[in-house]
């Protein structure tokens, strides 16, 4: 459960992020993957390149070593030919078995020395006659295995190499140094020049010094020469220790990775042709030139290019996608602040975003048009409703009816009924008059008078109305029906609640170029709270419903404020149980 939850959360985290963050994630991820792949490729490439380099290097070294050794051996081989032409040697070989003595052998030895005097590293020269008499120039102790020498194997080797030479180690185990120093033996059969019969065998033993001097020209200490059995001959003993048996049987060059103490080294081996010698070369652990510079530069360039393109992509995404989206979003947000459906003005790049902008704007157009249509429709409906209301009232019908009833009252000798109807008619004539938003104060006062006299008819002797209307105010234009609701308020929320007869006084005068009108009553008065709530300026104007449902005072005050375009047009003074005075202060419009 917990795990699942965690996973979901994680998923949520990813999917809930903004495009910018996601883009950065993707770019970051790509960068990481690329770096890893680059590193791996780098390592593989450098590894391969290094291996190739090492192989190439080893091949060069080994071929050169092998070539040098072969050339050296060849020079020895060439010299061996001279042996058969040497008089002392010929004499020794041609002598009968019993003629062979120390003198002859000594002469022969000198003869041989003459031949090889110019050659270095010649350890010893043996010339065997078939009757096993032999001469040697060697110093030191040598073992000579006559059994092996007589062996058909030894003979056969010489015979196979008809007129040629054969090379083997330590005289093919027939002749070798007692102290164990390895020697390279070049053997050949010796034929009589005249009879062309084989008369003996020549063995030239060469010390490993020859190999050492050959190797010395090679770089480093990572080469060596070993025998087929892996026995060290010259060069680096450390490298020789890495010899493996299958090197001897391999054709051509062999490369093998060998795990050393610290690192993996590559060992290359090559048999020197027609010899039991094998040259070994180990790669140097610290090759100075492992990777070609060009490769390095190319790869680095690639890496930098990739980094740059990723950065460019990131900048592109930010500049062309996320930034315009933020702008778009901000513009749309402005609609909320503006309070109406605003179109997007911001410049968008000429791509899908501008398409989005166009679509949004055309939607806004459509919505605005729709709203306008709805609004118009609403207005029409409202107008129709108003008309229905007016139709219902039908002043003409009302007035004619009033006239008819008035006449009936007169005929029936009821003048008071006639008067009442006359007042009612007059009240409605003023009250229902349409077209005028503003009327002279005098007419509004007439409405009030008619209204109050009708109320007096209803409630009997409930109030006295008094008027103190300054002559100069009579023609002042005021919004229609602003006094009647105040007077109505005085009756219903003032005088009637006292249960006693009261007075309503309406006064008007001009002061400081402002029209002052007061409605004063001796009603129950208002508490400060009520006054404040009545005068409070609401953000949301009282709706029509509130207006109709009774407390018309607040609605009237709002209407006056709206008409004057300012809030300080109404003052209310009151003392509980004593009086209420509502004062309207209307700025007079400059005439002219």
């Amino acid at each position: 459960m917990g795990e699942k939850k965690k996973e979901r959360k994680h998923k949520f985290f990813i999917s809930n992020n903004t495009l910018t963050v996601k883009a950065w994630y993707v770019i970051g991820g790509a960068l990481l993957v690329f770096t890893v792949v680059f590193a791996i490729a780098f390592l593989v490439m450098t590894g391969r390149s290094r291996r190739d380099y090492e192989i190439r290097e080893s091949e060069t070294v080994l071929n050169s070593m092998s070539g040098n050794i072969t050339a050296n051996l060849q020079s020895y081989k060439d010299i061996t030919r001279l042996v058969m032409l040497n008089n002392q040697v010929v004499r020794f070989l041609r002598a009968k078995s019993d003629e062979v003595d120390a003198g002859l052998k000594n002469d022969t030895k000198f003869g041989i020395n003459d031949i090889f005097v110019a050659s270095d590293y010649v350890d010893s020269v043996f010339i065997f006659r078939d009757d096993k008499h032999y001469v040697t120039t060697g110093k030191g102790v040598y073992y000579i295995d006559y059994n092996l020498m007589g062996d058909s194997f030894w003979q056969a080797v010489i015979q196979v190499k008809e007129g040629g030479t054969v090379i083997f180690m330590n005289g093919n185990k027939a002749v070798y140094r007692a102290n164990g120093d390895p020697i390279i033996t070049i053997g050949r059969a010796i034929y009589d020049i005249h009879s062309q019969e084989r008369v003996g065998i020549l063995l030239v033993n060469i010390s490993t010094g020859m190999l050492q001097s050959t190797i010395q020209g090679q770089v480093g200490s990572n080469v060596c020469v070993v025998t087929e059995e892996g026995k060290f001959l010259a060069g680096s003993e450390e490298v020789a220790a890495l010899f493996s048996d299958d090197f001897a049987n391999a054709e051509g060059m062999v490369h093998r990775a060998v795990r050393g103490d610290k690192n993996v080294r590559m060992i290359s081996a090559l048999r020197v042709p027609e010899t039991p010698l094998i040259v070994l070369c180990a790669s140097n652990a610290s090759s100075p030139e492992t990777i070609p510079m060009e490769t390095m530069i190319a790869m680095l360039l690639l890496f930098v290019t990739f980094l740059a393109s990723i950065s460019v992509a990131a900048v592109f995404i930010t500049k062309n996608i996320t930034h315009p989206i933020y702008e778009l979003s901000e513009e749309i947000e402005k609609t909320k602040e503006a309070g109406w459906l605003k179109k997007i003005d911001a410049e968008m790049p000429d791509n899908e975003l501008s398409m989005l902008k166009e679509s949004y704007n055309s939607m806004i157009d459509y919505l605005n048009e729709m709203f306008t249509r709805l609004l118009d429709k609403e207005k029409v409906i409202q107008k129709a409703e108003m008309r229905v209301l007016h139709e219902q009232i039908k002043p003409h019908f009302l007035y004619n009816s009033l006239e008819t009833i008035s006449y009936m009252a007169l005929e029936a000798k009821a003048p008071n009924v006639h008067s009442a109807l006359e007042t009612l008619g007059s009240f409605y004539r003023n009250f229902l008059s349409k077209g005028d938003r503003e009327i002279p104060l005098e007419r509004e006062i007439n409405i009030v008078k008619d209204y109050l006299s009708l109320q007096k008819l209803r409630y009997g002797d409930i109030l006295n109305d008094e008027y103190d209307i300054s002559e100069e105010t009579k023609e002042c234009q005021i919004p229609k029906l602003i006094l009647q609701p105040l007077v109505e308020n005085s009756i219903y929320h003032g005088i009637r609640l006292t249960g006693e007869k009261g007075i309503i006084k309406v006064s008007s005068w001009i002061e400081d170029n402002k029209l002052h009108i007061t409605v004063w009553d001796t009603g129950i008065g208002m508490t400060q709270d009520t006054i404040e709530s009545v005068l409070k300026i609401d953000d949301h104007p009282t709706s029509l419903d509130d207006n109709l449902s009774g407390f018309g005072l607040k609605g009237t005050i709002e209407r006056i404020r709206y008409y004057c375009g300012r809030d300080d047009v109404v003052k209310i003074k009151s003392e509980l149980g004593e009086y209420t005075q509502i004062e309207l202060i209307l700025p007079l419009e400059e005439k002219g």
Partner: protein
Amino acid sequence: MYRVMLIDDEQSARSLLRESIDWASLDMEVVGEAASGIEAINVIDDFRPDLAFVDISMPFMNGIEFTELATKRYPNLVIIIMTAFDEFEYARQCIRLPVFDYMLKPFVRGEVTETLKRAKAKIEAMGPRKQEEEEEFEDSSIEQITKYIKENYTDSKLNLTFVAQTFGFSSSYLSRKFKQETGKNFVEYLTECRMEKAMELASKNVKMFVASSEVGIPDPNYFGRCFKKFAGVSYSEYQAKL
């Protein structure tokens, strides 16, 4: 005593005005009433009013049409238009008419009395009526006039004053002379012409409202009264009898 005529299609409105105003104290009397502009044109020469209350909205000929006609024929007539606020369009048209005043319905006695006082002052200012002068009257004139009437009685606006003005007499002189010569009142004669034609139409089974227009009294109510007075029976009864 100034003569007042009340022209309103509402019977109660006329009666109320007649009853509720203290005319005598204003040195005025209501001498006649008419329920439409058409009727008013036909009877106005009998009543010879100094002042007329004209309701603006009346059928067949409304107050405005009547006022336009009356101001041409009776330049001294003081006209007070009565209007209700829901007839604002009418009221607007009134403004260009040379009426003395217009009053809002339903009227209040005080206001009416106030207006009448001012009207009286205006009438007084115009001075007494012109004394009739002896005019040259040829015998052939009456013949021409009766011929003119017979040819033009279908014109609903035809009346004594109009004919007098057409032939160049004063209306009072013509009225008197006409009675002398023909033994009949001008209106009686005109109505007789129209009713004779009406009876002819009635016998052809023409509907009353059609006949009333054709004979020059396009107000069927007034036509009906005229017909009954002339024929002794109503138009429909007359048709039924045939």
